[in-house]
């Protein structure tokens, strides 16, 4: 059941992206930024939280989930450390993901070479 819920939530988020991509002039990079910012706003307003509770990884793995996590970290930081915490909290909450992205990106760049798409 958890898998199905994650599939539905994650899938619907991607459908929104696909519909925007197919029907507007926006590029994938635009959509990436819009989704991330939307995650911050929805997270800050508390709207995204129910989606995370329902869909789990389906809501946290897409880039919107990264935005959500930034907002939650900033709120937590502000609560415990004040204004400074609002600045540090977002990155602290995402430190694991960011470090993993850098490490794996670096290893992949060492191991593989880009090839022509076909």
């Amino acid at each position, binding site marked *: 059941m958890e898998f199905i819920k994650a599939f539905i939530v994650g899938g619907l988020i991607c459908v929104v992206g696909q519909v925007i*991509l197919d029907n507007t*002039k926006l*590029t*994938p990079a635009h959509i990436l930024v819009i989704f991330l910012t939307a995650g911050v706003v929805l997270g800050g307003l508390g709207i995204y939280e129910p989606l995370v509770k329902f869909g789990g990884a389906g809501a946290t793995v897409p880039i919107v989930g990264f935005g959500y996590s930034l907002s939650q970290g900033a709120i937590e930081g502000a609560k415990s450390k004040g204004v400074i915490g609002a600045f540090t909290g977002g990155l602290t909450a995402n430190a694991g993901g960011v470090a993993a992205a850098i490490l794996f990106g670096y290893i992949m760049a060492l191991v593989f070479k*880009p090839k*022509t*798409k*076909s």
Partner: protein
Amino acid sequence: MLDGVKKLGMQSVKFQNPPSILSTYSIVGPKEGEGPLKDYFDLILEDDMWGQESFEKAESKIQEETIKSALSNGNLTNKDIDYLLAGDLLNQIITSSYTARQLNIPFYGLYGACSTMTESLSLGAMLIDGGFAQKVICATSSHFSSAERQFRFPLEYGSQRNFSSQWTVTGAGATILSAEGNGPYITYATTGKIVDMGIRDATNMGAAMAPAAMDTLINHFNDTGFSPQDYDLIVSGDLGSIGKSIVIDLMQEKGYALSDNFTDCGYEIFDSKEQDTHAGGSGCACAATVFNGYIYKEIMKGSFNRVLLVATGALHSTTINQQGESIPSIAHAVTIDINKA
């Protein structure tokens, strides 16, 4: 017309001693080598890196080998050539400059984006007819991967391609023009003006370039007195399926019926359904390989007597495009005729 003045009408020239095409050569990458025109290219690469360590170096090798092979096809050496006119898509036209570094031929670098083939043929023909040269090489190249990462996305980035987007042709084409020869000849050239209809979408080049193609076609017909029916083939450079149908519609509105004798190199070079290239081929090598491969060989076989090649170029850069500017486009046309007049 004054004696010695070769300008014809607003934008065209008629060559008094039309330069002859002495030899051509074309090299394409593996994907183009699987396309509908595969039998016409002189060399199909199995590996688009061609043993080089980067896509840019590979593109330069492709252009260099194309020029060298065109020379040997015509039983010529670099000493026989007065000028090399070449261009490509990469910043500072590095492909052509690094190719010219190897060739020891006086070199003019051109930037006309994907219109470079007809830009170089026009200027090469003018140099010869003007008496400034006996033999000239006109060449251009593009490479999918070097263009992709300069103009679009890093190759590592797995984004979806827009349905209006086109596929940059990997390859190069070279034409050697000579003051003497048995044809086919370059008899007319029409120089394009920049036409910009305000299109900003860099994934829809065909639509951006179509009005430029129309403008050059109409000026060509007005200046020369030809009608579309005087040509066995009218072929644009890289408008793709979208741009091609826009040009047909625009010309129809202006009272010119482009019918079965009109097509587009980008439309012909790939099988868009089988090869997933969406709107078709693009890049300098698109018009260059189709002209030096397919069109030249069909002219020599006798299938076409008179061809109008209209290569189209989108003269933007990613920087100015990101600042919201639209895409200035251009099209240059040359007439290739088996007869001198």
